[in-house]
């Protein structure tokens, strides 16, 4: 089934095309964030200006025309309201025009599922780490099949923490990866470590690291990363042991970080657990992950009337049914 997925929950407008679980195209346009962070209305305007172009590029890349589309998925949430609405409206317009079925997709489910499926995993502990989210999840069948949140951040996402710190250091975008590069050769300065069972928090760490500027940039970046990622590895390890899981995967924007993957790999190896992730761009926000989930939903006969398609800023991952 040829499905197009549209993603616009934050700074990326993405359109992806999937056929039979295979990704045929994943095109995107990213809003360049200045020193002020993201102003939702500005980002939404950016999406409005790019939507049509990104969608046609995706079709071109997949070598198909509008009339070949058999189904549509869009990101219902979570995300920034005005941004989500641009994607939702684009998807609804396409659905009406082409007279095909449409489904709303949870953004987090998109990230996890594209990784789980591409890495060939069945029932992993999923560590979902991005700017806005940091959670540890596992599929549960009660009361319906969904990703149950085993642990999560009490405050901000780990990516947000890395970005905020990079801005304090006046590093250049894209901040998270700049922190990673700056951390090379750094020495460890003690940082707060905040874990409670399978939950964790990052603001204390951010405050402490910020208060230590102007210590050496390498040392601060190194210590910040080591502390934050150790917290994630420890809680993921606890989740694996508690649920007796044989598989682990990491997804979301921060999953692009090499050091995080190295730590998780070491931890997984110690327990003989299979560790999966996807390369590069599929970890960042993209339309292909939305298309992939949408195709599975549509194939299972799930769809929503166009007029009932909405967005929801706080659409929690554990409320989304998974197929």
């Amino acid at each position, binding site marked *: 089934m040829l499905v197009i997925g549209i993603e616009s929950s934050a700074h990326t407008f993405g359109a992806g095309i999937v056929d039979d679980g295979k990704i045929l195209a994943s095109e995107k346009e990213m809003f360049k964030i200045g020193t002020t962070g993201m102003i939702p209305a500005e980002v939404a305007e950016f999406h409005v200006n790019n939507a049509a172009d990104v969608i046609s590029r995706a079709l071109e890349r997949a070598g198909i025309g509008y009339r070949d589309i058999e189904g549509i998925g869009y990101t*219902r949430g979570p995300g920034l309201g005005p941004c989500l609405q641009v994607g939702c409206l684009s998807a609804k317009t396409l659905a009406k025009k082409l007279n095909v079925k449409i*489904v*709303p*997709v*949870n953004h987090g489910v998109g990230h996890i599922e594209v990784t789980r499926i591409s890495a060939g995993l069945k029932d992993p502990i999923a560590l979902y780490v991005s700017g806005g989210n940091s959670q540890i999840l596992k599929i549960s069948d009660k*009361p*319906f099949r*969904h990703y*149950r*949140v085993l642990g999560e951040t009490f405050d901000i996402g780990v990516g947000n923490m890395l970005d905020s710190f990079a801005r304090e250091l006046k590093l250049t975008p894209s901040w998270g990866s700049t922190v990673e590069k700056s951390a090379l050769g750094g020495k*460890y300065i*003690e940082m707060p*470590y905040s874990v*409670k*069972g399978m939950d964790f928090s990052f603001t204390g760490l951010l405050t402490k690291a910020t208060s230590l500027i102007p210590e050496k940039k390498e040392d601060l970046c190194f210590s910040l990363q*080591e*502390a934050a990622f*150790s917290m994630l*590895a*420890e*809680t993921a*390890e*606890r989740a694996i*042991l508690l649920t007796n899981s044989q598989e682990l995967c990491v997804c979301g924007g921060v999953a692009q970080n090499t050091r995080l993957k*190295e*730590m*998780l790999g*070491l*931890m997984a*190896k*110690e327990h003989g657990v299979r560790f999966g992730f996807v390369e590069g761009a599929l970890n960042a926000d993209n339309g292909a992950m939305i298309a992939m989930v949408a195709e599975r*939903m549509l194939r299972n006969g*799930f769809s*929503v009337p166009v007029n009932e398609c909405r967005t929801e800023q706080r*659409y929690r991952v*554990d*409320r*989304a*049914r998974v197929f």
Partner: protein
Amino acid sequence: MMIGEGAEARIYLERMFGTEVIVKLRGRKAYRIREMDETMRRRRTRKEAGIMLAAAKAGVPVPEIIAVGTFSMYMEKLDGTLLKDTRITARHMASAGSALALLHSSNMVHGDYTPANIMSTKQGIRIIDFGLADTTMDVEQKAVDLLLMKRAVSRTTYASFESAYAKNSRNAGDVLRQLAELERRGRYQTRTMMG
């Protein structure tokens, strides 16, 4: 002989001075850098032992600590069954409730107060695994201890737990109010079948 494994530590059954003892060892984690790893393991071991000693002093039934090393703790071996592996009686729950009240009254929280961490022995119940315990006056953290138990057992058994807790605790009112609040904003409260 290893008899259990958690994210932080491994549990061994060993012989010492001719008797069986339980050893909780916080081993090295390959994923953590050495300086951080050693500090954390040392601090956590010391903290856990400290809380267990303080809990024992407050009258909470805990296994006796025989010795504390840098990264390890030697404890008395208990003969009994974990509540999660046995039929939980109202009596078990009443003891668990008053034990928690004693712990909270001395401003400590357990952090993982479930039937998996309470053992029924001939001499009564024993509370084990203080790995997530903390010293705090925070009403919310105390309420979390009750919430975990409430989620893990049946409604009727929980009732005997809560009433024993209320009878023996100094500020049960505040804690129970906070518990209601926690449940109201609970993580898994509302779910729809939306995509």
